[in-house]
């Protein structure tokens, strides 16, 4: 006995396969307009796709970081309690001799964004959608560019004079990229 599931799957296949067929089998979905989508379409891709216009520099970023981020991530991005944003990865490291004690207290400090993330665009994407943790989506695009610049500078990946925008950000190379492998074939 074919199950309902199988019948539906076959119907869907038949429908998908029939060139020019426009009537979906179930078809309860409604068309999504550009305007309805635009306000939610916030994902930024490694090649820079979907980065918004705007710009920000390290100096501006430093001010915003101290004001909006340091309380949770630490003055230098390594003290916690929330995730380590700068420096090397691991239980021990020359750049932070207190690391093992910090991790014992705040387990999320076991890895570092600067050392683990492969693309700089992801910093912009995440900070804009989720940070500060208690006030997500409260920063302007310019502010997010500025903070992204400061975090990259903290990690020694750009000059203090650098400006981040749609063109510059995707060009910043993160050290983790060359060490990355995908488990998905």
């Amino acid at each position, binding site marked *: 006995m074919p199950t309902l599931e199988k019948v539906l799957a076959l119907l869907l296949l038949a429908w998908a396969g029939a060139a020019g067929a426009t009537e979906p*089998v179930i078809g309860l979905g*409604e068309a999504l307009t550009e305007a309805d989508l635009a306000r*939610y379409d916030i994902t930024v891709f490694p090649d820079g796709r979907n980065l918004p216009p705007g710009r920000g520099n390290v100096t501006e970023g430093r001010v915003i970081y101290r004001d909006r981020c340091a309380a949770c991530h630490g003055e230098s991005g390594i003290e916690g*309690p929330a995730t380590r944003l700068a420096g090397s990865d691991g239980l021990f490291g020359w750049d932070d001799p207190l690391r093992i004690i910090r991790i014992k207290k705040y387990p999320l400090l076991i*890895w570092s964004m600067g050392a683990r993330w*492969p693309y700089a665009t*992801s910093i912009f994407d995440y900070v804009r959608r989720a940070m500060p943790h208690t006030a*997500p989506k409260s920063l302007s695009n310019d502010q997010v560019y500025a903070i992204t610049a400061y975090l990259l500078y903290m990690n020694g990946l750009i000059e203090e004079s650098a400006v981040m925008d749609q063109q510059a950000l995707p060009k910043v190379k993160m050290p983790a990229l060359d060490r990355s492998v995908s488990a*998905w074939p």
Partner: protein
Amino acid sequence: MKTSDLSLVAGGGLLDRRDFLKRALRYGAVAATAASAAPSRSHASERAPSASLTPALPQQGGQREAATSGAATIADSMAPWMTSLGGADVAYGSPSAHEREVQRSRKFDAPQTAGMTMWHTPLAALQGIITPSGLHYAVSHNGLPDLDPTRHELLIHGLVRTPMRFSVERLLRYPMVSRIRFLECAGNTAYNAVSPFVEDHSCQELFGQVSCSDWTGVPLSYLLEEAGIKDGAAWIIAEGADGGSLTRSLPLEAVMKDAMLALYQNGERLRPSQGYPMRLFMPGWEGNLNVKWLHRLELTANPAYTKDESGLYTQVLADGRIQRFAFTMEVKSVITRPSAGMVLPEPKGFYEISGLAWSGHGRIAKVEVSADGGESWAEAALQEPVLDRAFTRFSIPWRWTGASTLLLSRATDQHGRVQPTRKQWRKRYAAHSFNHYNAIQAWRINRNGRVENAYA
């Protein structure tokens, strides 16, 4: 039948589960049921001092004068609840007030994670394979959104012919499927993955980021086909409607085959902490990408490298390379009774060892148990049903000798994947890598009956 009548099948006092079967057959009346796959359980639990592993109900103070004259009523010598009319029931039931200590435990409380919450399932207090919805583990990265289901929509766009939106009301009209499946956080048992020295944590703290439910929802393929997948689409970016818009990239091929838009859990609509009104459900895959409060699916050629696939949910291999997109949770098991945090009530005597096994690759084929630190092993009984990518309950009778020993369980799945030892697992990863830990777990039974976490 005394426990001394049971035959030993392995060191440390492991008993032959088939002895229970033989006993049942002798009684004839239960012969029909005894022929089923896991007959030892009912008889084992009948004789097991199971109640003594949990706090005993205090003796009621109904010890009034025994009825001596014709004026006395039978009520005089009975427990009070047997001699009065009971109370009212309630519209939505909850567990007995005597079971109030069975709770999820909150790990990494604020300010340690500055607000990210992890609630662990009390595995050792539960039986069977279904986790009650309110006890299902939950990791919420950005708190629980206070979401209005009448305004919530699922958006599908990107490499599709017709970008679409679906209201919850419309989604509830689609044909649905139900699947009993486990869900496990990639970081479950992370303490034992990274701590160089054994830390004294309970089973709940160590293993509580795994649960199993009956999930019901719409196969995602129905909705994606409706939008029409364009050539070149290979990934799907799933985003939640929580404050931080949690986002993960999943390979489209696997999503088309296996993903469900889950709307119900254990028969009722999803709980808020499981993503009400809907979540993505990918059987066997790490918890994080089963995006809760799902509201947007973007079809793309490449992954987005979102925050979670960039850092927290990656593994560092022994050679320093960073492994990404390792989705499947591996074959794993844990003895839940007895387990760390419990005290065996009697110095010697009968216990039923009982636990859970699961694999993100398929069904569990067998679970072996050792009561002598891995020197000898015996196969445990698997309780039906044994389902694809679901909890499988195993059990084996045990007569504790009273000596200090290590209890171990080792699961094998239908593809022959076996749990590694902790040493073998550690060899694959850098010292600080903690995700996807599935090594054989050991519980130390101390002479005083105290059960503790141990490395075998």
